[in-house]
Structures are given as C-alpha cells and as structure tokens.
C-alpha cells in the first residue's frame, strides 16, 4: 500500500479553486515529485497534506489513516515534516534554536543530538552560524536551515517545497545529493520543484500539475523523456 | 420645543445620571432616592390626579453623553423637568441644554458654583462648595483648633478641585495655614504613598481630603500606614456606609461635613431612613437623601406653579422657601442655590455621629437655639457672577 494516497482533492481559497480534484500516490521509500508552472497549485498540495489548508473535499491518507481534517501538529507527529516555500525560519531565534524546534516532537535526546550532528555535517555552513539570529542569514543559508530543521523531525514522509530556490548551483547539486541520501536512509520524499530537470532525475515517480489538475503522471524517467515535459518544463525545444 | 403635553394622565420627569462607569455608585444612590420620592408622591395621589413618572438615561459619567441624554429627554420624551447630575461637570453640560430649551433642571448634589450660574432654569438642593469649604475650615479652626492643615485632592474631579480651592480660601481667611503644597492624586493612583509620605513629613494638625469615599477609604488606610495620626477631614463626598465598613479603624475619629445625618432624630429624617431601608434594604447615603429632596422640591414647585411650562415651573422652584426636606430646611437664594446649614459628623465606632451644625454666614441662630426658620440671605458665599447663559 502507498504511504501517501491523495484522492480527488479539491481546495478553495475563497473564490479561487486552487486544486480541482487531484489524485496521486507516493510509495513508501520512494521520491515522488510534483512539477508544474507558477500558480499550478503545488505548494497548495503540500500545505493541504500538512494540514495548513483545509480541503473542500477529497481524501488524504497517510499510512492508511485519514489525515484530511487533522490539525497540523498532529500530522507532524504522525511523521510528515515539511520544509515550506519561503523557508519560514524563525527569524528571532538562533540557528541552533531553530534546529531544536525542528525536533520539537521528539523526546529521544541522544538521537536528536546525533541527528543534529548529521545535518550539520550535511550543511557545514550552518555550523559556522549556530549562534546567529536566523533572520539575518542570507537567502541560501535560510533555505539550508529550513531543510535541516525539517530533517530533525525524522519524518517518514518529507515534503520539500522548492528546496533549490535561490541556491547557488553547487549547493543545488549538494541538496539533491542530500535528498538522495535521505531517501536511501529510508525517508520517503515528496518534492515540489521548478527545477524539473533535477527533480525528475532525483525522483522515481513524477506528476505534472497544471492549473489545479494533474495532467501527466508517470515514471519520472519516462516523464523527462516525454515531449510535452521537455518543452514546457525542461526548456528544451 | 419641550412643551408639556396635557393629554396624557402622567407627568414625565427626566433623570440623567451615571448608572455605569466609574461613578455609577453615585448615580445609583441618587436614582434610588428619586424613585422613592416618586413612589411616595404617586401613593399620595400624584399631582392633581396625575401620576408622576421618571424617565432615566445613563450617561456613563461622560459629558457628551450627558448632553445627548438631556437633549433626548427634553425634545423626544418631552419631560417637564430634569433631575441630575451628581458630578458638577456633567450637571454643567446637561444644565446648558436644559437652559437652552427652557426646561427647569434641579441638580441634587452638584456643589460646584458654576452649575447654577448657567441660568435661571437651573437650581440645586445642596449647598455649594464655597459654603462647604467654609464649614470645614471653620470647624477645623474653631472646634479642632487645627492651625496647619494639609490638603490632598483628586485633580481629575471638578468636585474635588473646587472644594479644595474653597476650603483653602475660607480656611486661610480665618487665619489657618495650609501645610506645604496641596497634594494631588488621580483616580489612577491606587497607591498614594508618594503623596502621603510627603504629608506625613509635614506633620500637620489635620488632613483635608475633599474626595469621594471610594478613594478616601483607601487613602485613610494608607495614611495611617504612612504614620499620619492627625484627624482626617472631608466633605459630603465621604458620605457612604461603606466608608467605615472598608476603612475600619483608619477612619475612626475623622470628621466630614454633610447634608444630613441619618442619625438625626427629626421625624423627616427618621421617616425617610425607615422607608428607604424598607425599599432597598440599606442605609441611605447623602446622595439618596438629596435625590429624594430634589424630587420632592420639584413636586412642591409643580403644585405651586400656575402651569407646568418651563418658565413658570423654574420660577416656582426658585421661590422655594423653608421647604422641610430630609437634608434640612431648604430655601433657594436668588441664584437658586439651596441655603441650608451643614452638619459635621464624626466617625465613631464606624458610625457617622452628629457633632455640630454650621450655618451659612450671618444666619447663625442664637446659641443653644434649635434652628428656627432660616432666613434667606444674599451673603452666602463668594460673590456669584451674574448668569451668562445664552437664550
């Protein structure tokens, strides 16, 4: 059974019908990616899974359990963490404190400390800045912090909203490398990206979203070969 | 205009007062007194068979609201006369409206001189601040032999600042000395140590507190803590059974001037106290007595007046002579201020106990004599300015 199953999901923002009945699944242990142009509803999908936005109809099941109407903090406790679009670091807390908040739901202190070492190893830049107020970090540094923080929740399903946004090319590569590593260590990932190129390479399964509807769903590799995707999302004509 | 209508079989009287807000306790007492009087009047057959009815509006203790309330009473409810307010600044606001519409207004208990200066429609059944200042000053000087008195007043209350000024003027005129600068407080200071420490250091013979009992209760407690042992003096704002109940020991041995003493054995007072207790199950304070008297005087004037037209009625009120009220024998002077003696009471065992009566200057009865008819006299207090009211 799929770890995450979304069925016929509809979401409205007031009069805006942002998601118009999307269905997709993410299998345990895989990386799935959602790609699509601006305003397609990718972030909305992630926000709805995390419980920040209430669906108007449709169902979301995580590990067989319905989470469509659950409060965000309960969803996190079930094992879904998100690195949100726009990073959302706690500007008035230090980098260190931000990381601790990431592990808020966990009580295994020793394990948390080990995980913290691991993510600081992944992002050495953050180690240099542990004491700095995160609001004064550069854009890229904040992005790293947001991902690191989500990892500290040790989620079963990690939702990443445009993790490569605003990152230097080298870091983008690193990030995707890390995504693969995290995945290999057992975390399932749902990745939203503008950088379709990288995303499809990192993913097993891909979905293309257009104005609130899923228009293509396929094996990620096959998708990256398809003409439509190549033209519209990979910029190859 | 507010012409009284003769068609209905009730006569409508208006009342405005603070039934909510900081000063609600005063508005409520007055209201209780007024209702008691109305009940009595109606039980006795009303005015030539017509019942009296009172329409009451809350003004929250705010000037603008007072203006609106009186306007509405007069122009919409067409009341023949208006009763209220306690606080002088609100009586002034409401009084100016009444004067403008030529509807008589009686303030039960506003003691600031400016109230009746508004014009010929406005009168009151209480004495004015300058008299009360004189009373307390004279009492302090003559009876207590106090030569240096410290003063602490509520700077946000017209009542308090007015009484303070009048006390200082009268007391120093007799030869007394004010110890240090008068200390001011505002309703926001529940902790009065700063002022009281300063007063304690002056070691005055007495401390004059022209405030409302709500503040005086706590001031007296803190004064004793600050080491002030001199007697405290006050005005009619002190009058409430709660003062002793709350302040207890601290207020013992203090004096204040009042319109009446509920211990007064005269039948008028005892009768009133009994009826009031029966109706409300509490001891009437001075404000209740004044509300009661104001209503009774209004009714008395209605009976004497050729018509209920504003001008006639106001003239009848102004012509009130030797009306036996609960708060004494009341006559109106030519400025429509009640001339009547004040009593000084002393807090003893938690009860305001009658000490002496002080008469307006020049009206003192012969010693040992129970007051006869108090003749009205011009020489009441400070020179009163001619009315400068609009027409």
């Amino acid at each position, binding site marked *: 059974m799929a770890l995450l199953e979304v069925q016929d999901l509809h979401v409205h923002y007031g009069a*805006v019908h942002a998601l118009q009945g999307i269905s997709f699944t993410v299998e345990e242990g895989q990386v799935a990616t959602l790609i699509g142009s*601006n305003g397609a509803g990718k972030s909305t999908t992630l926000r709805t899974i995390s419980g920040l936005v209430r669906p108007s109809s449709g169902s979301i099941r995580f590990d067989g359990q319905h989470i469509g109407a659950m409060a965000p903090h309960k969803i996190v406790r079930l094992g879904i963490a998100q690195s949100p679009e726009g990073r959302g670091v706690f500007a008035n807390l230090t980098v260190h404190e931000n990381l601790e908040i990431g592990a808020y739901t966990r009580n295994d202190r020793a394990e948390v400390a080990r995980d913290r070492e691991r993510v600081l190893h992944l992002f050495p830049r953050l180690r240099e800045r542990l004491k700095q107020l995160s609001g004064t970090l550069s*854009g890229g540094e904040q992005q790293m912090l947001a991902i690191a923080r989500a990892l500290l929740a040790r989620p079963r399903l990690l939702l990443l909203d445009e993790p490569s946004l605003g990152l230097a090319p080298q870091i983008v590569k690193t990030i995707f490398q890390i995504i693969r590593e995290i995945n290999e260590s057992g975390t399932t990932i749902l990745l939203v990206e503008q950088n379709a190129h990288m995303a499809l390479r990192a993913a097993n399964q891909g979905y293309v979203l257009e104005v609130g509807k899923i228009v293509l769903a396929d094996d990620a590799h096959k998708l990256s070969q398809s003409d439509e995707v190549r033209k519209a999302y990979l910029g190859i004509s | 205009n507010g012409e009284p209508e003769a068609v209905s079989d009730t006569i409508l009287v208006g009342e405005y007062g603070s039934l909510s807000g900081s000063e609600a306790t005063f508005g409520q007492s007055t209201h209780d007194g007024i209702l008691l009087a109305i009940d009595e009047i109606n039980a006795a057959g009303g005015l030539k068979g017509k019942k009296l009815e009172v329409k009451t509006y809350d003004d929250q203790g705010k000037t603008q609201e007072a203006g609106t309330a009186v306007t509405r009473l007069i122009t919409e409810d067409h009341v023949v006369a208006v009763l209220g307010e306690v606080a002088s600044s609100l009586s002034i606001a409401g009084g100016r409206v009444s004067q403008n519409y030529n509807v008589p207004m009686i303030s039960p208990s506003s003691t600031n001189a400016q109230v009746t200066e508004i014009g010929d429609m406005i009168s009151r059944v209480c004495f004015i601040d300058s008299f009360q200042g004189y009373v307390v000053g004279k009492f302090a000087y003559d009876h207590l032999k106090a030569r240096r008195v410290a003063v602490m007043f509520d700077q946000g209350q017209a009542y308090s600042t007015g009484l303070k000024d009048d006390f200082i003027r009268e007391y120093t005129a007799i030869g007394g000395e004010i110890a240090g600068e008068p200390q001011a407080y505002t309703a926001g200071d529940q902790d009065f140590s700063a002022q009281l420490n300063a007063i304690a250091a002056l070691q005055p013979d007495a401390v004059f507190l022209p405030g409302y009992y709500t503040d005086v209760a706590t001031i007296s407690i803190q004064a004793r803590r600050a080491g002030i042992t001199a007697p405290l003096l006050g005005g009619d704002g002190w009058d409430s059974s709660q003062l002793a109940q709350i302040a207890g020991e601290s207020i013992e041995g203090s004096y204040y001037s009042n319109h009446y003493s509920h211990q007064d054995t005269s039948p008028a007072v005892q009768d009133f106290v009994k009826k009031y207790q029966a109706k409300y199950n509490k001891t009437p304070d001075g404000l209740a007595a004044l509300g009661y008297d104001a209503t009774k005087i209004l009714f008395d004037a209605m009976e004497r007046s050729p018509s209920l037209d504003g001008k006639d009625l106001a003239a009848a009120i102004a012509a009130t002579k030797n009306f036996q009220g609960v708060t004494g024998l009341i006559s109106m002077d030519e400025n429509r201020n009640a001339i009547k003696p004040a009593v000084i009471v002393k807090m003893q065992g938690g009860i305001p106990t009658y000490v002496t009566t002080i008469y307006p200057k020049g009206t003192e009865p012969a010693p040992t004599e129970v007051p006869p008819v108090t003749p009205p006299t011009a020489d009441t207090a400070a020179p009163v300015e001619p009315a400068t009211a609009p027409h």
Partner: protein
Amino acid sequence: MSAALHVDNVSIAFGGLKAVSDFSLTLREGTLHGLIGPNGAGKTTVFNLLTGVYQADHGTISLGSQRMNGLKPNQIARAGMVRTFQNIRLFGDLTVLDNVRIACWSRTTTNTLAALFRTPAHMAEEAAIAERARELLDIFDLLPREREQAKNLPYGAQRRLEIARALAMDPKVLLLDEPAAGMNPQEKIALRGLIRKVREQFGLSVLLIEHDMGLVMDICERITVLDHGEVIADGEPSAVQRNPKVIEAYLGAPNEED
C-alpha cells in the same frame, strides 16, 4: 564607454562578520553586468549598500558623477538607481496598477494642494501617470490583471511586477536581485528576452544577481564574482566560467549534462 555606476572599495561589517570587504565594481553604461557568488557571499548586501539601506563603513559609491554615500534610499532611487528585492516586496493589498503608479511619485511635480483642488495640471499629471503605468504593465504582460491585488498574483507575475515598478522611476541603473528565482525554464526564457528588451528600450545599465548560470552566462556582458564578501573574479563570462577560483567556490565541477 563611461561608467554608469562606480563602486570603490566599500565595506560593511555586522558585528564581527565582514559581510562585504573592499568591494569595487564599475558598471559601464548600457551593459548587463552579472553579480554572482555562493549563498551568503554578500551579493544582496552589496545591493543594500548601493541603495542606501545600509551605510558603508567606508568606500565610495558614485552614480555617474554623483556621490551616493550618505543618501537615503528614496534619494538614491530618485537619482536613478532602483532595485528589486530577493524576497519580493510588493504593496500586496494594492492593485497591480497602483503598485506601478506609486513609483511615479518621485517624478511628479504638482503638490498636495493641487491634488485636493484637482487642478487641471494635477489631473493631467494623474492621467499621464496612469497612461505610463499601463504602458509598463503592457510590456510585462500584466495589463489584463491591473485591477487585481498584487498579493494574489502568481509568483512569476509578482517578479515581473516588481521590475515594472522599478522601471516606473525612470532609472539609469537597474539592480535585479535573483529575478528568475522560482520561475520555471519557460518563464526564465521569457524573462531573458524581457530583460534585454527593457535594457534597449529604456537605455538601462543592469546589475543582475542570479544563481541560474544558464541565464547569467547568456545575457551578461560582464560578471563579477563574490565570495566571503570579496571579489574573487571579474571579467567576461567565458573567462569567469573557466576561472578555477570561481569553479572551486561557486560553480563546482562542470555539469555532466550541460
């Protein structure tokens, strides 16, 4: 060719951290100049220094022949150097049209009194502002949405609106901070065309911060590379791309697929 912008040895430190040290740059008239570097290198800080958000600890900044040091952000904008923001800063509750009209403020001449009496001169100016704003919106393909609240636009459209707003000030120098971030490849291609187009049409000199190397290498005539607040390379794109220091600090090993 003369210099549109001349930056000489500027530095700024936050507490102990030297965010930018001895930064120099010459932006030649009419060029598209790239400013790249790893995250946290100090690129945005350079923009903040140029536009008066931060005051440089030392060094000089001249726009044409005019010294910019010590001027307030609004004075610098008026003098002709305008920017967009890395994290979009639009007037979210206002309409798209208003966002652009507001930026015309510094170029208007009638005073408040004229506005209150609606004098002919003022009304003519208002009409001119509206006309001009609509022309700009049209260039950026935003005209159909002129009445929408800016915050409701999709991300890419918001980025374009920010550029349109900047252009409404008649700038000489335009500073763009990661304009392509969050855009998909197709939109990035469109953006390339757009940047080139406005540069020609408005006679601009552009300083561009961007992490998308495809875009930078394609449209920039010159590139400055920043690392740890210091310039580590400066020159033609092809030269910069081959510079080992740049590869080491920023680009990483050449991408297999490119």
